[in-house]
């Protein structure tokens, strides 16, 4: 029996999954090596922004729409989670998905009328919604306490375990990030994801082959806002103080900058973008206020030299194939179909007609 291919396949499997097991292990063990809670805090923020960037990527990167008000849904998640736990006494475990669902409902209400139109209308509506949302937070004082913000949001409780240390939050956001990556990965590599891509590439043609584009755009928008809401809920319970300032459209632009730097239309880009844009200001913290200059310089540099971000459209998949494993090709029996040679259908296959 020929063991060669089997062995190769086995080694390939270990190498492919080894990379992920290694990354997974590093992040699981990270709190044991980082004794300084400040560093763990940075990683928690990176986690929050990875979820936000990945969810925005679903709209902007995969479906080809442009939403520039994503922070509003992040804020809806944060505020609804805070109010649910404070006023109605919801446990955190229930408030987390429910705030995601509330954000998704608002996503539906915004998306339903605007996604029927093509072009810039969605963009303007999302920006407008973000501004209105912040104004509502500031002025609806009976509900949101206006610019004072909501303080003393209860600590998350997992059954009998109360979250107090940074590590607890770290593992929770780690789990949420994994959940986000896994679920978005599955969505994208399916008929659903294929339909979203076709809408981004050529909406008219997608419609002509039977893709209900309005339906799919709306679905992508709702799913994306759901993740933003989850992320907001975590943020509220982690910081334990939220105010309208956290959710202005500057926040949305930060998310857009993450996609611009990391690249959109794949899963790796937004994660790298979120990591860089959170880590860089922290690294240059000793420069005090001048560190924002680096932020701006990086953006300018990216626009000049690599406009599509570090990881461009779709060229980077999370699926790693070992170099010796051939890509899937058409089976030979199909290439040599008798139809080609039966004389009735003749096309010159020598160089002459090759185009």
């Amino acid at each position, binding site marked *: 029996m020929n063991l060669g291919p089997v062995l190769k396949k086995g080694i390939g499997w270990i190498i492919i999954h080894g990379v992920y097991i290694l990354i997974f292990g590093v992040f699981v063990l990270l709190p044991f090596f980082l004794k300084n809670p400040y560093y763990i805090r940075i990683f928690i923020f990176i986690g929050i922004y990875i979820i936000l960037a990945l969810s925005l990527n679903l709209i902007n990167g995969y479906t080809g729409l442009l939403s520039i008000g994503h922070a509003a849904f992040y804020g809806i998640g944060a505020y609804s989670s805070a109010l649910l736990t404070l006023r109605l006494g919801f446990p955190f475990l229930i408030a987390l998905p429910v705030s995601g669902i509330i954000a998704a409902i608002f996503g539906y209400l915004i998306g339903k009328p605007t996604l029927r139109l093509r072009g810039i209308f969605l963009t303007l509506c999302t920006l407008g919604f973000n501004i209105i949302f912040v104004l509502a937070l500031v002025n609806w004082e009976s509900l949101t306490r206006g610019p004072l913000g909501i303080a003393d949001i209860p600590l998350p409780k997992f059954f009998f375990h109360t979250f107090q240390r940074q590590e607890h939050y770290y593992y929770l956001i780690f789990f949420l990030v994994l959940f986000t990556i896994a679920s978005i990965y599955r969505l994208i590599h399916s008929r*659903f994801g294929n339909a979203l891509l076709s809408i981004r590439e050529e909406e008219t043609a997608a419609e002509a*082959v039977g893709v209900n584009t309005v339906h799919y755009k709306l679905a992508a928008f709702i*799913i994306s806002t759901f993740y933003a809401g989850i992320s907001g809920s975590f943020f509220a319970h982690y910081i334990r103080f939220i105010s309208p300032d956290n959710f202005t459209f500057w926040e949305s632009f930060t998310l857009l900058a993450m996609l611009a730097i990391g690249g959109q239309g794949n899963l790796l880009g937004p994660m790298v973008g979120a990591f860089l844009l959170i880590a860089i200001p922290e690294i240059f913290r000793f420069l005090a206020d001048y560190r924002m200059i680096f932020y701006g310089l990086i953006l300018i540099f990216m626009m000049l030299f690599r406009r599509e971000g570090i990881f461009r459209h779709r060229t980077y998949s999370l699926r790693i194939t070992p170099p010796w494993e051939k890509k899937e090709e058409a089976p030979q029996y199909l290439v040599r179909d008798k139809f*080609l040679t039966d004389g009735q259908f003749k096309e010159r296959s020598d160089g002459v007609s090759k185009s």
Partner: protein
Amino acid sequence: MEFLKVNSVTKTFGGLYALKGVSFSISEGEIVSLIGPNGAGKTTLFNCINGIFPFLEGEVFFKGKSLNGFKPHEIAELGIARTFQITRLFSKMTILETMILGQHYHLRTGIWSALLRPRWVSVEEKEAREKGLNILVLFGERLLPRINEFAETLSYANKRRLEIARALASEPELLLLDEPTAGMNPYETEGIIALIKKIRDSGITVFIIEHDMKVIMGASDRIVVLDHGEKIAEGTPVQIQNDERVIQAYMGKRYHHAST
């Protein structure tokens, strides 16, 4: 009951009549060509049948059912597929993905089944892939060796082929081809003629816009001629070749100075 019936369709852009009361019908299993000088309204007529343009007056019936008010994706579900004059391919999708997308309507995976992935999802994906490959076989070695490349990397003629393949993947009953042979050399055009006949033999009615006389005369059973948004003639290739109005539309008026 006609297979496709276009009943006095009128379409205006502003004050300009792109189509003026065009009516004709197509019966099942035919190859019908739509010809006419540039700007005659051929593509506009396709867009009206396809549901991209809502039109002012008239009606389009497909298998006895009025298509008015239907969206393009609903019309696609009824069994009308089309290609575009200026190719509209999903440039950042591979050829295989394009072929799977072409079968979109026939697949069932939704959001929940994509997330949970029950066993039938992977079976369905495998079947869709095989069906896509089987359709690509029609184009021989043009597309099959390139199934994992992005559609944007294809040559012009191959892009046209992929458009036809994508339309066929949706298992249409009526196929609208908008200038399928544009940018192809004579050999390749012959291949397309054979292909169109083969498509018809497999039970799909074909409606083509074409400029290439070889395709029109060689493949079509009937010809509809448009000029300035009006139907000026309809008939078999031989009838059309000898029709005075068609010659006028293409060549201009024939003057008889010499004899008088």
